[in-house]
């Protein structure tokens, strides 16, 4: 809120300059900056509605600086005519409106406000409308109490009824918008019609206008929760509704009414009728809160003398009674009834006025037993390290995407988590595949002439589940396109085996044996270049349909790994295997293989026939259908003889020929 220094000086005397004042307020919890022309801009915290007025700020300054606040003078001359001859008020729903007050001002001339008022309001950031509205706004700024002025002539029988709306009741508010109400909404009505949504906004049907002669001024305390609901449900936020939902000062309801009525009479050269309506559910009395000075010291870790605690509380307007040295009884003024309910609230008050920066820093003990290690977090870091080492750049993409992104990636929108109130449709569905963000990134970069794209992301994907919350899964995804080399002199582009090698590195780096790899028909991948890692993920060439729909210029390769599943494989502890001391013997087999015979089957056959004697088997040369395998034989307990190797090797060759139909070269 804007706080002109000269206005502030009507409410509290102080000798600080603007900068110093701003500094003091900021360090007491009211963040303040200095604007030109001796005006402060004060940011009011949501729990400090009491400070949201010129008087509220003045009270804070008094508490901080020990200068006294000034009391406001009321220039009120009531006419002899009594108010009850002119207005009747009936409050039917006192729970939503515990206090409703009104005054009547007669013979008002509605017109422009005088220059002094226009200027004063303008410095506070308020636009002048006419003298009646300006008077209401003036009091709102001064005391923080919203009020509403009605044209009495437009209210049927000058009879005001405060009640819940009838379900389906329609109302057009001052902003010209129509609302359909339900019984949760409190309205101000006359016997025929709604004249205001209580505490939120008035209606044009009773608005003060140039021909208004008699003004009914309303000042009330509306139930904060009810106002908040109404404002939310009707999507109707006003200066008045935000004040009421945070809670206004119970006592200021009357004070503002009196001052407002007097000001309207003064500005409009009218007369305030004698007396006021006060429909009061029940008078409020200040709350008592116990405060233990020891507890203050215990929470803050600062040796604040009890005398200083008492002094701070008194300056803030609290009444303090010392029961004994270990206990104070603190009476909370009504203007702080919204935020001060408990001992801890008082401790905060003492701390902020005492000064946070006067509380000495300490270091807590954090060396205690029973801590846990987040091994999944460690795994993610390890995976990230390996990926970066393998030449991939980490990306971070939004967890929510648009239907178009799903479509481009060929991913179904069934079984997705949707956001009910997205900012845009492009950010409305939680991702189910890590691919979507990778693709978006690839397209973004390709459109900026970047041809070699090697990226990965570690993030969560989301699926509907039977539980209250969706299933969340940690996933690693990578997308590779173009050349991985540092310079253009390096020849060759990424292919299926490049990606596979990268994943082999990942598993090796994590100390996990690569699970079984088999061809798969995953819809994201190109048939024939698509592999599944059993229970862990998929990799291969991106399906040409997806490449086309994303307009990727080059074939892209992709992998997706379920990190939660991978994590389970890592839990096993590592055991050391002795280094062999006896020599190994290698034998090679060169053969022609049938086109549909997979490497895996050849290796399995060799391992099966070879048994424990075969330590390792791998292809080392391949041209078209001609492949050469090397078999390494070893016995960990002794040196193998020529004869036993030969006979085992012969058995293997025979099995390959007879069972797998290979032809030995």
């Amino acid at each position, binding site marked *: 809120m804007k706080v002109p220094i000269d206005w502030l000086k009507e409410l509290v005397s102080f000798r600080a300059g603007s900068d110093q004042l701003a500094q003091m307020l900021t*360090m007491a919890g009211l963040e303040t900056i200095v604007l030109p022309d001796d005006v402060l801009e004060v940011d009011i915290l949501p729990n400090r509605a009491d400070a949201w007025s010129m008087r509220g700020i003045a009270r804070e300054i008094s508490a901080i600086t020990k200068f006294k606040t000034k009391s406001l003078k009321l220039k009120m001359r009531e006419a002899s005519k009594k108010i009850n001859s002119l207005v009747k008020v009936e409050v039917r729903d006192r729970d939503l409106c515990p206090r409703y007050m009104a005054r009547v001002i007669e013979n008002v001339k509605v017109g422009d406000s005088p220059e002094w008022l226009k200027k004063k309001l303008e410095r506070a950031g308020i636009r002048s409308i006419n003298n009646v509205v300006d008077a209401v706004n003036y009091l709102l700024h001064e005391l923080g109490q919203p009020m509403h002025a009605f044209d009495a002539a437009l209210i049927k029988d000058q009879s005001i009824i405060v009640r819940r709306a009838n379900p389906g009741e329609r109302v057009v508010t001052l902003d010209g918008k129509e609302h359909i109400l339900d019984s949760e909404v409190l309205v101000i009505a006359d016997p025929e019609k709604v004249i205001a949504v209580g505490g939120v906004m008035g209606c044009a049907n009773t608005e003060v206008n140039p021909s208004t002669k008699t003004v009914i001024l309303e000042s009330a305390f509306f139930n904060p929760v009810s106002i908040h609901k109404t404002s939310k449900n009707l999507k109707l936020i006003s200066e008045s509704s935000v004040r009421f939902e945070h809670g206004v000062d119970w006592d200021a309801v009357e004070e503002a009414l009196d001052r407002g009525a007097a000001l309207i009479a003064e500005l409009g050269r009218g007369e305030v009728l004698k007396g006021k309506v006060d429909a009061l559910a029940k008078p409020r009395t200040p709350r008592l809160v116990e405060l233990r000075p020891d507890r203050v010291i215990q929470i803050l870790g600062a040796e604040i003398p009890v005398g200083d605690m008492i002094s701070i509380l008194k300056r803030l307007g609290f009444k303090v009674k010392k029961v004994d040295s270990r206990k104070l009884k603190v009476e909370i003024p009504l203007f702080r009834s919204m935020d001060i309910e408990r001992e801890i609230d008082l401790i905060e008050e003492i701390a902020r006025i005492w000064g946070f920066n006067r509380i000495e820093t300490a270091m807590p003990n954090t060396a205690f037993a029973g801590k846990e290690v987040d091994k999944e977090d460690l795994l993610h870091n390890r995976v990230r390290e390996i990926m*970066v080492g393998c030449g991939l750049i980490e990306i971070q993409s939004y967890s929510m995407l648009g239907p178009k992104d799903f479509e481009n990636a060929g991913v179904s929108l069934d079984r997705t988590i949707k956001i009910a109130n997205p900012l845009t449709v492009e950010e409305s569905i939680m991702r189910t595949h890590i691919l979507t963000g990778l693709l978006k990134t690839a397209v973004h970069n390709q459109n900026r002439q970047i041809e070699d794209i090697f990226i990965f992301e570690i993030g969560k994907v989301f699926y509907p589940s039977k539980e209250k919350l969706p299933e969340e899964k940690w996933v690693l995804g990578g997308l590779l396109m173009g050349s991985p080399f540092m310079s253009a002199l390096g020849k060759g582009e990424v292919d299926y085996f490049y990606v596979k090698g990268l994943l082999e590195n990942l598993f090796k780096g994590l100390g996990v044996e690569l699970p079984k790899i088999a061809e798969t028909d995953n819809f994201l991948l190109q048939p024939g270049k698509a592999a599944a890692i059993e229970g862990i993920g998929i990799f291969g060439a991106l399906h040409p349909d997806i490449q086309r729909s994303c307009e990727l210029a080059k074939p892209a390769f992709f992998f997706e790994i379920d990190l939660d599943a991978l994590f389970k494989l890592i839990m096993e502890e590592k055991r050391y295997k002795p280094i062999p001391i006896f020599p190994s013997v290698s034998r090679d087999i060169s053969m022609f293989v049938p086109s549909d015979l997979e490497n895996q089957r050849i290796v399995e056959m060799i391992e099966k026939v070879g048994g424990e004697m075969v330590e390792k088997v791998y292809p080392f040369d391949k041209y078209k259908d001609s492949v050469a395998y090397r078999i390494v034989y070893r016995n960990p307990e002794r040196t193998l003889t020529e004869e036993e190797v030969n006979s085992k090797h012969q058995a293997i060759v025979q099995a390959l020929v007879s069972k797998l139909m290979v032809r030995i070269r």
Partner: protein
Amino acid sequence: MEDKISRIKEEALKVIKEAKTLALLDEARVRYLGKKSELLEILKSLGEISSEERPKVGASVNEVKQAIEQALRNRKAILLQADQKKKIAAEKVDVTLPGKGIKRGSYHPLTQVMEEAKGIFLRMGFEVAEGPEVETDYYNFDGLNIPSHHPSRDMWSTLFISEAVLLRTHTSPVQIRVMEKRKPPLAIIAPGRVYRRDSDATHSPVFHQLEGFLVNEKVTFGDLKGTLTEFLRQMFGKEKKVRFRPSFFPFTEPSAEVDVECVMCSGKGCRLCKDTGWLEILGSGMIDPNVFKAVEYDPEKFTGYAFGMGIDRIAMIKYGIDNIRLFYENDLRFLEQF
């Protein structure tokens, strides 16, 4: 005989000297020192020489043999050297050509800042805990002393999945989840993604927070100040001033906003700090007794502090980035800089 020996010597030394390759040199060695060499013949025929002359001839043969051996060694060394030189010359490369191998990848700047921040707290003795990104309104709000129909809920513009399920607006729900399951003492940090219905140059609907909390007997506001001051010094530099300013969060009381001296102007006032000289980095405070009640801790026995920071904001400050969108656009020309 003597003449013959000295002739052999002369001839051999000449041939050796002129040998152009290691192969020719080896030929020379065979010719002058091999089994069929003249010198060996002479030695073999020593028996035919008179006993007076025999030692003399023997001595000169040996002398010549040594001289030839010496010459061979020297020549060999020279030829080896020349050979190597040639090889080196042939292997010369343009040292200014680019290197071989695959490019190194890089960590996302947000990861780097997150890991740096986590590292500081881990070294202080905190442990890492995580929670779901899609949360119930209980963990995101009610458990944290933010009742429904209370204006304080409006402090967070929330993305909802349904009425009671939402994208967490902060990492604070992890506080409740951990405290429900475990008993003090606890020193926890909770990193993760959070979501708000906000989007402009400094607000992204997706961003990252690091939450932290400590619960034990006799934890004080002074401890909070000490921990966070130490963190900020390690993160931004020892010389940077830190200040604690009263603020409001429903789940802490007293609550403090923590500012660090502006990294760009060192407190003199600039565009980055909006002329205040300070940068707001952290929200923090003593855990509200209502939060302890929600997890059935006795607020008389235990006290604690909690804090939370925006990793994106810290990264923006650290690297001088003025638009948060850059983090999520993933332009490789941006990412490669980190």
